């Protein structure tokens, strides 16, 4: 989590944005606001319209109806080369026939500053992305991570109001990606520019963003900060897309005093706060969801602080620092996943072990 950004002015406004490709309805009424200086992510599966939405900010994609505003200005008649945005492309789009220096300084061609000042700006930009001394190299001789840094320096040298990043980390290996995630966050804090990131990687979005818009089929399903998105997803679909969530069938018995009475399979009778039930349901069939880490397997001698349920271990997946247990709660066919931090001296349990599981009603979310 970074600084509270709720009171910051809006940098980008989408007002009921629609986009059609022929008969295909790619963006279906996007209304959202991205605040100045925040790290904002557009997250969704491929084909959900997140890249299209990003490209409407850059000006590469026109919109069929609605409005896109940047810094209070209507962008309808502003072409891509005059918008206060710069982009880091998925393929990085490093100009292969130019040197690193020429690539980074490309946007300064129309800058009235002297050549010496421009060279200084290029050197500073390269230093900022950790490529000091690489200026004279040929662009095609760089590694994937270095290309990405050149693309960043090239986009940031123009001091845009908004930096757009189109899946910039997807071509890197896992280690490099995690390192770049941290560097990008640091860089964003350092320059204070609004970053808009497109990604299909929910973990990446959670790690990097101040706020995330989850998109499905051309619509924003939920727009929230990472913690809210993870703890209080507003639909089963969002819950499923972000991390792992277990679902158990439940029957709603009634509602009283801001609490919903639920009979959940395996868990028994539970009271769930109405603010844990997005979609305002008060009767009928539903399901309760909970994250793997909200349940704890109790070892001998441990007692639950709130509620506990018995079950049998069905599967064990060992991750080194963590172990994932698939536990079949008594009375439920489908096992639920429980993640446990491994503690030195405490054995990993075997498949088939009878166990007790501790949980609390506060961690449950009720879905339609």
């Amino acid at each position, binding site marked *: 989590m970074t600084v509270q950004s709720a009171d910051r002015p809006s940098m980008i406004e989408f007002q009921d944005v629609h986009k059609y490709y022929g008969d295909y309805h790619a963006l279906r009424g996007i209304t959202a606001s991205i605040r100045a200086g925040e790290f904002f992510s557009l997250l969704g599966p491929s084909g959900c319209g997140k890249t299209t939405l990003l490209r409407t900010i850059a000006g590469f994609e026109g919109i069929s109806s609605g409005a896109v505003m940047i810094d209070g200005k209507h962008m309808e008649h502003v072409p891509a080369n005059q918008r206060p945005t710069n982009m880091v492309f998925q393929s990085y789009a490093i*100009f292969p*026939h130019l040197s690193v220096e020429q690539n980074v300084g490309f946007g300064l061609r129309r800058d009235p500053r002297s050549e010496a000042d421009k060279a200084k700006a290029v050197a500073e930009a390269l230093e900022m992305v950790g490529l000091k001394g690489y200026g004279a190299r040929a662009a095609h001789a760089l590694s994937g991570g270095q290309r990405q840094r050149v693309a960043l320096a090239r986009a940031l040298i123009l001091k845009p109001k908004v930096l757009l990043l189109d899946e910039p980390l997807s071509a890197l290996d896992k280690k490099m990606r995690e390192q770049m995630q941290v560097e990008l966050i640091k860089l964003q804090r350092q320059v204070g520019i609004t970053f808009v990131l497109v990604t299909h990687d929910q973990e990446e979005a959670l790690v990097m963003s101040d706020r995330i818009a989850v998109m499905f089929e051309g619509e924003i399903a939920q727009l929230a900060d990472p913690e809210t998105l993870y703890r209080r997803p507003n639909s089963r679909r969002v819950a499923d897309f972000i991390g792992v969530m277990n679902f158990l069938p439940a029957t709603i018995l009634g509602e009283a005093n801001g609490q919903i009475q639920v009979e959940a399979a395996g868990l028994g009778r539970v009271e769930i706060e109405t603010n844990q039930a997005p979609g305002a349901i008060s009767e009928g069939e539903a399901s309760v969801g909970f994250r793997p880490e909200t349940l704890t397997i109790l070892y001998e001698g441990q007692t639950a602080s709130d509620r506990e349920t018995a079950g049998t271990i069905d599967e064990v997946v060992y991750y080194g620092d963590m172990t994932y247990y698939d536990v079949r709660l008594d009375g439920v066919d489908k096992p639920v996943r429980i993640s446990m931090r491994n503690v030195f001296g405490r054995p990993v349990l075997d498949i088939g072990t009878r166990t007790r599981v501790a949980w609390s009603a506060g961690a449950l979310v009720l879905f339609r």
Partner: protein
Amino acid sequence: MKLPGLRLYALVYLLFLYAPIFLLPIFAFNDGTIIAFPLKGFTTSWFGQMFGNDTLARAVRNSMIIAVSSAVLATTLGIFAARAGSRFSFPGKGGIMGLIMLPLVLPEIIVAVSLLVVLLGMGMTLSVFTVILGHVLICTPYAIAILNTAFSSLDRSLEEAAVDLGETKWSTFRLITLPLVMPGIISSLLISFTISLDEFIIAFFLAGNEPTLPTYIFSQLRFPKQIPMIMALGTCLVLLSIVLLTIAEYFRRRGIARSGGKDTGGFL
């Protein structure tokens, strides 16, 4: 070698391919009008005769004008077509592209005869210009084929990146697109030039009274006395071809090296 038969086959093949060409310079410097062994002696007089021949000079000039104009026109048209074909999709694209590429497989004599009929019907006088028209027609498909590869291997986001960094459509084309497809353009120019230079049928039908290099050589074959001079001319043309091919290959390799690609194929 495990299979000596294959080795022999390769040797015979190469001999059949290149032995006649090696005979050209031998007889070009042979002091005798009969093309046969034994050789008589060394002379450069055939080259002297070649350079003193006015009709030949005229044919060379005509051929150069035709080949350079055809190469430039075909490549320019090819750039437009390849750019449109690789960037945009429009109704009837497949059909239009197919029709443009058709002259590649159409028998040249059919193209030549029908062009002759149409041009005469339009009341045009046969000249170097009508040959250029015909050559542009047959060179353009080659130019498009070469340039299509160059344009479609160009990452579209390179152009978007340039626009994103403040360039206009035209300056993007000049600063990014053109340098990156330049090897393809040079290739296309050289191939079109070569095709036009040694094209016979269309030139024969459409040139009127103007000689071109191939039609001139063909007309001289009837005179045995002229054959050593033709050998000298052939020697010059072979040298020119080698030079052109070397230049084309140099640019192709430099293009690949500059864009950091891997070398796959090429001529040499």
